[in-house]
């Protein structure tokens, strides 16, 4: 819970966190090393100095650190795990469903554990998805389209294989599809970051919600375009929000574009923990006001009401969370959050 200076409470859901294992012991190859190093460069370049981690800690951190950074220090009432496989790069994979589940069991009502699938796993993967739904009761999945499988360097959601998986999600009631577009999708001569395939999927599956992580960056312009067309397309703010420290004006431009082209009900806060800690992101986000010239030009509203929607209410709606009822449940939680 975040409390403003005037005493107003903001219910926070961090819609993008991870517990990963990028350690040397878990790395299979140079790709494993380069993947986590790239994450670390994001962390190093945009975090305020007092929030910088040593590389060693960044490679692998324990559940207690996560709970402390996200829930206790980080104001989040709840957080959503968004795991990825990366089995070509890491022996035991990068994310771990069971490790996430264990944290969620220990701290009841705090965490939502999403899953993942890869359409290139064919029929076997479809059966697996059913089993996983039964075992973990997934409400959502995180898809990383640039993951490598054998010789394949990625996939698009418009491929028939992917369509079958989305059909299965619809059948099973896995409603929230979080997508992270990555760089290496075949055919390699096309723009791998292009979000047009999400447009396709969103219009074919109107009952599913498509949350485009990083608001489509590096293709923000294309993302805005599809979000105006498809009402079941949402934007996850992770990565974009990290401009708040070094380049607040750029953040102002991004958020005002999003509010202009889509609306305040379809933007979700996410820290992308452990790349960035939610504490500073949330503090800066709540305090932030649009510069006057940008406000004048776009005429959008970015007040506390809008901030509350982005920080929690919008994600709550997607995940069927009744905020007032949830607050009641959390009153009994052993974790007392920082500002509560």
């Amino acid at each position: 819970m975040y409390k403003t200076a005037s005493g107003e409470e903001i219910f926070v859901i961090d819609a993008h966190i991870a517990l990963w294992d990028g350690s040397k012991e878990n790395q299979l190859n140079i790709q494993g090393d380069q993947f986590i190093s790239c994450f670390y460069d994001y962390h190093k370049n945009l975090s305020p100095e007092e929030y910088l981690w040593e590389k060693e800690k960044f490679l692998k951190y324990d559940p207690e650190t996560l709970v402390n950074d996200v829930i206790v220090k980080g104001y989040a009432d709840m957080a959503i795990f968004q795991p990825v496989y990366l089995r070509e790069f890491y022996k035991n994979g990068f994310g771990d469903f069971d490790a996430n589940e264990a944290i969620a069991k220990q701290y009841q009502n705090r965490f939502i554990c999403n899953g993942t699938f890869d359409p290139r796993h064919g029929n076997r993967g479809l059966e697996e998805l059913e089993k996983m739904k039964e075992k973990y009761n997934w409400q959502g999945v995180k898809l990383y389209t640039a993951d490598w499988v054998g010789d394949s360097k990625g996939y698009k959601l418009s491929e028939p294989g992917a369509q079958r998986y989305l059909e299965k999600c619809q059948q099973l009631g896995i409603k929230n599809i979080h997508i992270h577009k990555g760089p290496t999708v075949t055919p390699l001569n096309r723009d791998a970051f292009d979000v047009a395939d999400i447009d396709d999927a969103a219009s074919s599956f109107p009952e599913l919600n498509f949350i485009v992580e990083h608001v489509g960056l590096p293709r923000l312009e294309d993302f805005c375009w599809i979000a105006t067309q498809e009402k079941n397309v949402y934007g996850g703010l992770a990565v974009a929000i990290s401009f708040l420290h070094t380049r607040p004006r750029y953040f102002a431009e991004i958020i005002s574009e999003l509010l202009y082209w889509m609306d305040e009900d379809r933007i979700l806060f996410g820290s992308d923990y452990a790349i960035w800690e939610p504490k500073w992101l949330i503090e800066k986000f709540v305090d932030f006001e649009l510069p006057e010239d940008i406000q004048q030009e776009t005429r959008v509203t970015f007040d506390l009401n809008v901030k509350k929607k982005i920080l929690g209410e919008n994600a709550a709606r997607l995940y069927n969370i009744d905020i007032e009822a949830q607050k009641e449940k959390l009153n009994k939680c052993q974790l007392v959050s920082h500002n509560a």
Partner: protein
Amino acid sequence: MNKEKKVYEMLDKVYDPELDQPLTELGFIDHIVIKEAQVEVVFRLPTYWCSPNFAYIMAEDIRKYVSEIEWVKEVKVNLLDHCASDEINQGTAEGKRFSESFSGLADGDLDELRRTFQIKAFYGRQEKFIKHLLSDGMSKKDITALSLEELHELDLSTEGQVLRDKYLEKKEALNHSSLVAITTPEEEALTEEELADYLLGAKRTRLSMEFNGIYCRGLLEARYNLPSINKVLQ
């Protein structure tokens, strides 16, 4: 002219297609080695994962522009620390097409991709130039009615001239033949009424390229421990 300076001058013409900025400005050129008529250009990117297709475009363009120097007989391009370094370095050395270098992983060459990003760059440069004209007091009506000839004759500030030249470069890259100065990338004329909405769309593209530029520069700095321009500008 000094040989090294000449090579760098040619490298100023090589742009990152996604960012519409020269590699020299972005810090992507690591160093160059000149041995008589042989030039090796060593370059690097912000991540190991940067899209191989854009990296290939940059490598091809490095080779193309440096080869234009009259004393140069051989150009070697060397991309460091990248997931497709081998394919890209060998491919460009042998003058292969992208589809040959990545056979099985590509269904064509890079012309379409190049064009898509020429169009984005066109929007970005055009938006900046039109905004400049508007802030100079020119009306929307006059802007949409401007002929190419009148555009050349406009009395502009130094900044305005740079923006005009950059815009004209992209018009040329898109092979525009229309005599109207301000058109869509497909050379359709715009009305005074259409201009505001058109500019909003173009601004979205321009901003997106700028954000990416900042991200890429930041990641390059973090990756190679370069001095931070973020911190300086804060």
